[in-house]
C-alpha cells in the first residue's frame, strides 16, 4: 500500500539552516546536510529545502549545497525558493535535486509550469501555494512568502497549476503556519479532492494527532519544520503514532 509521507522542511540562507535547531548531538546543526542526513536516518520520507537567500551569489551557493545534499542523502528531496526559470531548474536538477518547487514566479508567469513540465517532466515540478482564508470564507493565494494578497482563489490556482503540468501541490495555510494548532483540513481536503496529483499539507502541524488528522483522507503527505528541528515531535515517534492510528506509513 502506498504510504503517507512525512516531510521535514529546512529553511536555508547562504547555505546554512535559518531557524535554530535543538540537535545538540550534531557536529554542526547549522549545516543543512548534517540535519538532512539525521532526518533521513530517522525515517523521514522526503525532504524539502527552501532557500531564502536573496543575494547574487544565490544560484552558486544553492547549487553547491544541492550537490552536497545529493551526495549524502538516500531519500528524495525537493528544492524551492525564488526559482523562476528553466535554467534555474536545470542547474538544480543537474546538481542532484529530485524535484523543484515554484511559487510566486509561477503565479506571475503560469506558462513557467508548462515549460518546466515539458522540459523535465511533471514528476519533478511541485507547485507551492500559500493560502489564507478571506472574510468571504474563500481561500485566496498569497505571494512573496504570504505578504502579498491576490484575488486568485486557491482552488482555482491549484487546478490550473495541475492542468499546466504540476505533478504535486505543496499547500501552506498562512492562517495555520506557526500556530502548532493543526493543519488546515478544509482547504487541503478540498484541493486534494479536486486535483488528481498528490497534495502535501503544510502549516500548523504541532502534535502527532494533527498529522493523523490531516493524513486521514485530506492529504498525501504532511510537511513541518520547527517541531522537528526543536524535537518537539520526533519522526520515529510520529510514525509509530500514525501506524497505531491506522495511517499507512513506512
Amino acid at each position, binding site marked *: 500500500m502506498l504510504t503517507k509521507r512525512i516531510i521535514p522542511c529546512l529553511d536555508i540562507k547562504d547555505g546554512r539552516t535559518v531557524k535554530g535547531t535543538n540537535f545538540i548531538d550534531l557536529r554542526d546543526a547549522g549545516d543543512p546536510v548534517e540535519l538532512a542526513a539525521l532526518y533521513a536516518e530517522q525515517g523521514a520520507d522526503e525532504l524539502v529545502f527552501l532557500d531564502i537567500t536573496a543575494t547574487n551569489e544565490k544560484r552558486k551557493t544553492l547549487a553547491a549545497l544541492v550537490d552536497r545534499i545529493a551526495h549524502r542523502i538516500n531519500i*528524495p528531496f525537493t528544492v524551492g525558493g525564488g526559482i523562476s526559470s528553466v535554467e534555474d531548474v536545470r542547474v538544480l536538477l543537474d546538481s542532484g535535486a529530485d524535484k523543484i518547487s515554484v511559487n510566486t514566479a509561477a503565479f506571475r508567469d503560469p506558462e513557467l509550469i508548462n515549460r518546466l513540465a515539458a522540459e523535465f517532466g511533471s514528476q519533478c515540478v511541485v507547485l507551492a501555494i500559500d493560502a489564507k482564508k478571506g472574510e468571504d470564507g474563500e481561500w485566496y493565494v498569497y505571494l512573496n512568502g504570504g505578504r502579498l494578497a491576490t484575488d486568485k482563489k486557491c482552488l482555482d490556482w491549484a487546478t490550473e497549476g495541475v492542468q499546466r503540468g504540476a505533478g504535486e501541490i505543496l499547500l501552506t495555510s498562512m492562517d495555520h503556519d506557526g500556530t502548532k494548532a493543526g493543519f488546515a483540513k478544509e482547504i487541503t481536503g478540498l484541493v486534494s479532492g479536486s486535483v488528481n*496529483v498528490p497534495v502535501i499539507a503544510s502549516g500548523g502541524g504541532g502534535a502527532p494527532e494533527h498529522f493523523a488528522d490531516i493524513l486521514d483522507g485530506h492529504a*498525501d503527505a504532511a510537511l513541518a519544520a520547527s517541531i522537528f528541528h526543536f524535537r518537539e515531535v520526533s519522526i520515529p515517534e510520529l510514525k509509530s503514532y500514525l501506524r497505531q492510528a491506522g495511517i499507512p506509513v513506512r
Partner: protein
Amino acid sequence: MKLVIIKYNAGNVRSVQFALERLAVEPLLTEDPVEILSADRIIFPGVGEASSAMAYLKERGLDKVILDAKQPFLGICLGMQLMCAHSEENDTPCLDIFQEKVKRFVADQPHLKIPQIGWNNIHGLKTPLFRDVEENSHCYFVHSYYASLGDHTIARTDYCGGFSAALQTRNYYGVQFHPEKSAEVGSAIIKNFLNII
C-alpha cells in the same frame, strides 16, 4: 569493478551516480558501445518519456548494444519499462527483453492519485537481487506507467491493482522503483546487484 551508466536523453542520472559512489563504486557515464559492452555491470536509468527515449536509443544503435549485453544489467524506472515489449506511452514498441507490457495506471478508487508518488511495499521477492531484503520492504516510486505482472516478475507492488515492481530474465534485471532513493533498502538492492555473479 567497471560499472557503466548508459547515457541517453532520459534522465537525471546524478542520484544513481551518487548512490553508487556511496557504495565506493565510481561509475562511468557513457553512450560509447565499446565502453558499455566491456563493463562488468551496466545500469540503464531513466526518467522521461518512452517514445523519445526509444527513438534516441535507436538513432545511436544503443538498442542493439543493450540487447547484446551479457553482463548483469539493471534497468531503473523508465529504463525497466523500455526493456519491456511495448509501452502504452505514445504507443511505443520497446526492447522486448521482458515480454510484459507497460500500461498507464487507471485509478480504480477516487483517492488514488496518478502518478504514484511515494513509498510502497514490494513483495513476492525472488532472485539474488533481493537477497536479505525483507518481504514488504518499502521502496520509493514515481511513475504513471507500470509493467504488468508476468513470468518475469520478481517483485510485486499493489497500486490500482498489482504490477511488476521488478523483472528479471537471464542477466537482465529491471526495477520500477528508485533504489538510489529508497534509503537503506535501496542501497541493499544496489549492493546485491553489484554482487550478482
